[in-house]
């Protein structure tokens, strides 16, 4: 992967990639692995981009697929479960954001289903329902209903934690 490709085609979307990767990981180490794997997959798949959608949609789709695949692998890996307790401690320290409300929101997002996490993150990043539907692979109407349901769920989770 050339640094030019990274700077021009990945870095502009690094923010959302970082946010997505953080929603699927519990430690800095895992987060870095996920981020690097996403970048690598974007680079590997770049020749398959057919311009049928926007480059950003393509990038988000790859990021989501990579995160879901790695999460599935992690779930199947008993060793990772053993080390989860260590990672939880890490979550409290160097992995946390400086803003406490954001930490709580992230913790609530991590309690959602894997797809709901992606939907709400893309919504919070102000992507249109059409773009979210395109990335997730569903129809636009479904997304609207889903976003409202997720927001309700998040509010319920956050109730009692944020005034």
């Amino acid at each position, binding site marked *: 992967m050339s640094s030019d490709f990274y700077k021009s085609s990945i870095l502009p979307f690094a923010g959302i990639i970082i946010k997505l990767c953080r929603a699927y990981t519990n430690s800095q180490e895992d*987060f*870095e*692995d996920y*981020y690097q794997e996403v970048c*690598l997959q974007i680079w590997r798949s770049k020749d398959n981009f057919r311009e049928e959608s926007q480059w950003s949609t393509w990038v988000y789709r790859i990021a989501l697929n990579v995160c879901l695949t790695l999460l599935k692998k992690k779930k199947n890996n008993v060793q990772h479960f053993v080390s989860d307790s260590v990672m939880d401690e890490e979550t409290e320290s160097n992995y*946390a954001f*400086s803003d406490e409300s954001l930490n709580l929101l992230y913790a609530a997002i991590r309690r959602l289903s894997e797809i709901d996490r992606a939907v*709400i993150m893309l919504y919070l990043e102000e992507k249109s329902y059409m773009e979210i539907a395109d990335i997730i692979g569903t129809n636009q109407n479904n997304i609207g209903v889903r976003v409202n349901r997720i927001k309700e769920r998040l509010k319920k989770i956050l109730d009692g934690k*944020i005034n």
Partner: protein
Amino acid sequence: MEKSIENIWKDGFLKSDKLIAPQIDNLYSQKSIHIIDKFTRMFRINLNAIVAFAFVFLVITYFVGIPITGAIFFIALMILFAFNKKLLKGLEKLDKGDSSYEYLKSFNLWIKKHKEINKKVYTLLYPIIFLALIVGFWFKDAKGLPLGERLVTKILIGFPDTYLVYGIPLIGIVIVLFIMGLLAFFGGRLFQWDLNVIYGRVFKKLELLMTDIENLND
């Protein structure tokens, strides 16, 4: 007033310093180490399995009445173990501090050396294993007489003109030598096939990784 999740999101990231993209320079370091570690682990398990099998087989053959087979098997497998144990030491000495590409290249060289040595070992090993089985059954006790001698007696009753070399039918020697020749000829290929069955996935990952790094360097 309670903040909406949209505001928590926006305000949180405005204040946050955690949106820095990780360095991707060391992208391949962990991957290389992980793949080679996986191979080393599998290789070590395989070696231990060879030793365990050699001992178990020795005991079984003793009780089955073909201890010669067990003994030859045991010695042959111990020689195989010794060769590969030495190779494993070389693998463990590979410097992880080298760059990912150099590390993978030295691992690749090690694999080549491993293949070359084991191809030669297996060229001898398969015929020896076959011969061990024949010899073991030949000397197996069959009602007070070795099974081989009993078999020759039966052959001589049916075919009195059978030509014997040191009490063994020449045709039998020719057939055994032919099969041993075939096993020696295909030994290297059988080893290669065996290697691909066990480590094929690791080798494919290694190849992909090296191609990636080469493209990256280009």
